[in-house]
């Protein structure tokens, strides 16, 4: 419990930091005024129009990435699984490439829905391919994800290499960023996130039972098919929504639940709770770093997450007695 409080404090500190620290220096008093006593001056605009949205987006996208990663690792019983393996990123970037390259769509507000729809469609295909008469097999789903991902990836690359405009727009989308997403972009995705979060905690109990083996879980009254389908739906809503808003941000969904498991052991409910707190922390910390590391310029958060997260992962891997599941 103390650990959860500590993680919550860390997240809170980073939320405040995300409001305070930026490429322009604005005093804490001005930040306070901008939030609670706003007027039409440039510093207040900077806080309300830019820092506040990116902090909110970072918080929600971070929670979604962390939870979807924890879900996929529990579902596949593979502690190195990443939400991307069900085809979320492949579907989203394929759809956005088609939108940009063939339909001439521009702007994050429009990319968003293509990305979400692409992620949704591909994961549903993966779910369908992974379903047999005996129920869903996570291994087959993963293989189906890799398979569809490869085919779509080939098409996507062919499209991009033949179309300089699509390539140009996609290389920025690909980096993954929480900047420049006004709150209007976030609102429509929030209900999906909420549904995903509720589903995630609802299946955490059954997933705990399933970790001991399908037979044992069934004997405890767990409905395997329902638990797996609900998990996949939750992953799609969370990871698909996150990708729709921020582009493909890698590593957060892989690393945070992995580290959470090292901290709290195998209980999914705790892993989920920690992931929901640590993932937005990692994302916000990376974003803050992205504002200062190349000052006065900025670096997209998707580039930084790996550099913040990977050394932690590697250090833990060297220090601890690690084991696969």
């Amino acid at each position, binding site marked *: 419990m103390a650990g959860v409080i500590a993680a919550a404090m860390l997240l809170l500190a980073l939320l405040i930091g995300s409001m305070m620290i930026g490429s322009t220096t604005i005093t804490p008093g001005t930040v306070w005024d901008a939030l609670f006593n706003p007027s039409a001056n440039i510093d207040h605009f900077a806080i309300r129009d830019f820092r506040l949205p990116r902090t909110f987006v970072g918080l929600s996208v971070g929670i979604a990435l962390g939870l979807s990663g924890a879900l996929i690792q529990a579902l*596949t*019983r*593979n502690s*190195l*699984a*990443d939400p*991307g*393996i069900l085809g979320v990123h492949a579907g989203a970037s394929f759809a956005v490439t088609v939108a940009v390259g063939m339909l001439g769509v521009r702007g994050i507000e429009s990319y968003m829905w293509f990305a979400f729809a692409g992620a949704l469609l591909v994961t549903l295909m993966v779910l369908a*391919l992974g379903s*047999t008469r*005996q129920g869903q*097999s996570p*291994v*087959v789903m*993963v*293989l*189906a*994800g*890799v*398979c*569809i*991902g*490869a*085919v779509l*990836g*080939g*098409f996507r*690359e*062919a499209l*991009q*290499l*033949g179309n*300089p405009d699509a*390539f*140009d727009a996609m*290389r*920025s989308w*690909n*980096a993954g960023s929480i900047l420049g997403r006004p709150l209007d972009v976030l609102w429509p995705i929030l209900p999906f996130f909420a549904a995903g979060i509720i589903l995630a905690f609802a299946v955490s109990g059954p997933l705990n039972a399933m970790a001991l083996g399908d037979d044992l879980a069934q004997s405890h009254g767990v409905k395997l098919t329902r638990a797996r389908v609900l998990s996949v739906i939750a992953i799609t809503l969370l990871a698909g929504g996150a990708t729709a808003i921020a582009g493909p941000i*890698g*590593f957060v969904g*892989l690393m945070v639940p992995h580290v959470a498991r090292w901290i709290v052991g195998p209980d999914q409910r705790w892993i989920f709770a920690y992931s929901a707190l640590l993932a937005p922390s990692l994302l916000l910390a990376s974003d803050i770093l992205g504002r200062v590391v190349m000052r006065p310029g900025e*670096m*997209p958060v*998707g*580039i*930084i*997450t*790996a*550099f913040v*997260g*990977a*050394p932690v*992962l*590697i250090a833990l*891997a*060297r220090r601890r007695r*690690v*084991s*696969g599941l």
Partner: protein
Amino acid sequence: MTDGRIVSPRRMPLGHSRVLGRFDGRTALVCAVVTVVITILAVLALMTGSYQLAPGQVISALAGGETGIVHEIVVEWRLPRVVAAVVFGAALGVSGAIFQSMLRNPLADPGLIGFSDGSYTGALVVLLFIDGTYLQLAGGALLGGVGTAVLVYLIAFRRGIQGFRLIVVGIGVSAMLASTNTWLILKADLDQAMSASAWNAGSLNGISWEQVLGGGVSIVLLLAVALMLSRPMRQMELGDDVAMSHGVRVGQIRLGLILVGVALTATVTAASGPIAFISLVAPQIGRRLARTAGITLPPAAFVGALLCLSADYVAQHVAPNPLPVGIITVMLGGGYLGWLLFTEARRRL
């Protein structure tokens, strides 16, 4: 990037039996048939292209009887490309066979320890910062890939190498390099970024004799070494103990196999960019065609050559402009996995 690493080896249907296969008649037959198909495809590839040439012109060019642009197209453009597809494909097939046999995992490849992302970083640095020549590009890719693999190995080494730790470190280092690559592409001039991206897709477009010969010689040497190691490799598939009881020096052979496998992939990557999935697919198709118990090298080599050649033929003819061959092999790999899904995995799970 392939996400092959997440599939747990224990749960994959492999089909290794406990019987030590020999180089039997069926394997020889398969190799012979594949060779015939390769020859037919090679002739087709030499005969067709965007520049219309009569079969007679092609034959006379090959015999040295043509000059000017006809000679140039057949002997300097089409021929090295065909040779490259065959040699590089064989190299990738063998490299994949080695890794799959050794790790007993049909999805294993050197990308696991950061090779692919590292070689792309090396290539990007050469392309974007020093505007290097072809040789520098090959060197940069090689240095980046091998350097990363060694770095991952060293970081993961702590009183010995543990598989899981190696994979975690590999993922971490790869993720940082992949981020670096995304950043470099994002900041590069559009034309240069697209060139680099085409390189990273794996392309035989515009390959010259210079490139083929440089890579080809080392590949042939490496293939010879691989063949010498193939017998102990098959014995090691049965387990280290069994192999040792047959007098195999397991440690040395394993190190030798790793080096040869990495060197083969590295050579191809340096010459043409990373051509995906052939190393994954060829050994498996070879094994099924030859109906051998485990992975054997010759079928993997021949099937790899065939796959690469046909993929390159498709890449040149499917779109209005030629595509990098790697785009076709990626889709091929996806199709193969789909097939695996419906035949084997479904039946067993």
